[in-house]
């Protein structure tokens, strides 16, 4: 079923909306959750919660891209669950590596300096990503939005994993510099 039709079902408050959403987007959302959680059961739970969140959000929200809309919900839910189960512990799983990599970008900044709104930070990241060469931007998103394994990213773009690592390393450095220039980090 087309996304527009599914959204129409949500607007009409028909529960078939959830059924069709699940049919079409379970694999997509499950993988986002599983990349973060590395746990089948928890990932399934997040996916089911995603349908409920979507049900509550549409209407009034009318997603431009239903898939991305759902993906973002799953990602948030999964990350909340990840944080709840890992608190401050380090190590283990892909998500820990992803966070360690992000640590490089925010390195040197303190926890108490948040004088910005999150939406300003999001806008800055959007600006930065749009300046990147297309492939570097895509690789960044596969890694830090989807928390995808570098080996999987390498296969996706037909390049060596070591090249993915190099591109990620460079984009992290550039983002660090960019956020510094924009006063998001000290």
């Amino acid at each position, binding site marked *: 079923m087309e996304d527009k039709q599914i959204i129409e079902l949500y607007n009409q408050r028909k529960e078939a909306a959830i059924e069709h959403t699940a049919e*079409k987007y*379970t*694999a997509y959302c*499950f*993988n*986002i959750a599983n990349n973060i959680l590395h746990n089948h059961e928890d990932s399934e739970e997040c996916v089911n919660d995603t349908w409920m969140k979507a049900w509550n959000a549409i209407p009034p929200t009318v997603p431009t*891209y239903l898939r*991305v809309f759902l993906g*973002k919900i799953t*990602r*948030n839910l999964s*990350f909340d669950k990840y*944080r709840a189960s890992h608190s401050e512990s380090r*190590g283990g799983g892909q998500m820990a*590596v992803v*966070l*360690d990599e*992000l*640590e490089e*970008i*925010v390195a040197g900044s303190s926890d108490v300096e*948040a004088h910005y709104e*999150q*939406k300003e*930070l*999001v806008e800055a*990241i*959007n600006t930065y*990503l*749009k300046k990147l*060469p*297309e*492939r570097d*931007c*895509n690789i960044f*998103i596969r890694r*830090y*939005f*989807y928390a*995808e*394994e570098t*080996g*999987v990213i390498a*296969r*996706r*773009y*037909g*390049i060596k*994993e*070591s*090249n993915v*690592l*190099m591109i990620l*390393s*460079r984009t992290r*450095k*550039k983002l660090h510099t960019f*956020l510094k220039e924009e006063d*998001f*980090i000290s």
Partner: protein
Amino acid sequence: MRREELFQAIGQIDDTLIVKSGKRAKRKSKAMLRTVIAMAASLALLLGAATALNQAGLLKPLSPEVEQTDPDSHGIPGGPSDELGTGLDDPDVPFNPEDPYDGPLISDGGCGPDDLTDTDVEYNRGLVSNEYESFAEFNPGPLMPVTLAQANSFVTAQRDMTYDFSEVTKQSDGFVAIRDSYEFTNSSDEDQEVTLLYPYLGTIYEMNNGSKPEVKVNGETVLADIQTGAYYGKDSFGYEQLLSFAHSTDEMDCIIGDVASHTEVKEVDEELWNKKVLVYEFSDVKCAGDPAEYGAYAVKFKTDDYKNIYFQDIGGVTYVDGYLYVGFYVEDVQSGDTPKIIFMDGKEPEDYSEQGYSYMEFFEQYEVDDVSASMTKREAAFGEVFEEVIASNRTAKQWGEERTLSEQEQKLYEGFAAQIVSDVALRNAKDGEYDDMAAYFSNSLSDMAYYAYTGTTLFLVKNEVTIPAGGSIRVEYEYLKQGMHELTCPEPDFNDCYGYDNAINMGTNMTFTKQVANIAEQGNIEIIDQNYRFDLAAGRKSVELELDAERYYMIVRMLK
């Protein structure tokens, strides 16, 4: 800011960016490999044509019977876009959560207009070029002018260069015949002996396929020496960058700098070459299932010195909690790979163990007991081990081509590979972060050897000439040069288009008194963007260039 905040902010980025990142994979497919082979065939034919032209002294039409590229490689795709089977692209892909790579690993797919969205058009800028920036997914580099090994104020030059598209077709992969001619004049009353350096940006693979520059002095072909120059440096952002991955001519300019500064021949690092190392070599690898879909083998050991561990033919490396995991695919070993781990300190690794995995993922849930391998240990000099890597490097053979390198090419290849290994070793020996270049190669000797064969570098075509007092000589360089292009998904407006940058003053110390650019064609091309002022319809095919200009460019569509 905490890393968690950043992760959450990334979760709110523009939907269009996320959609874009899920587009069809741009990777080397079977179709791409066929394109490479077709490219080789085109090259061979074009070179044949060039030779014929030289012999006959006139142009003769060619009918290149090149192997056709898969029409699907630039056509409308069939099937789902999520070839990796991650489910993250196309929700209709049957999903197996136990199998992270449940899709086919190699695709014949491509993409075409039907795949394009507004977002694609926005980001897939492709061959958008201007005189200061040229961006395309694949940029083989600009045409660069000759320079002198040592600047000489008595010597000036007039340049007359031609892009000859006469025999180029859509199947030529953008390779165009270049004739770059120079009239060198000596204004002094003494003969001037100078060393000419002609910069050629390309790969040993391309040279082996016939794009090596041929040099003529006063009409006579001469045997010129060729040496490798820059292959990495700082890009325009100040980051380490390999020439192959430079995104624009400006970045290449940053990396290369002064061409004459690259003449020093780098010697092999004797200390590194003679170093006694410990080699673990793996063979007799077996698994219970189909090796094409199943089976990886990995070793794990404790180390805090992973920079000093090198590899050959491995499939994956991960460093977690002080342990290095090194894995290789069963199928690859059964196809002829010889995985090796080289411990540069010559010492046995600590807490060493081996384990089979159903995938190249070193998690407990993928551990299996029915993958096995034999391991042998030996001591050797590092140089011997690297020679084995060079000897086993599957270059042309991997693509189904049976060709050998000429003596000159083999020497260049081995020298270039040795230079890369020495550079990586040198950088690994430094304290501090794992820099980009070392990260790119990940201590994989196979990757370094492969890069030496296929990676873009600056080659210097070198020959000495004497310019008589008050007189002049003519030197010509003839070769094939590929245009920049998108490998897979060109914007519809740029189908069959290639971009050609001409950096008329890049890296040179030469004083030019005139530069003229010419274009030859037979109604087989159209120029869709340029800053030369060519006008094919009006017959203006020759223009004098402004000597202080940085770049000239043109985007050409192949019509036939």
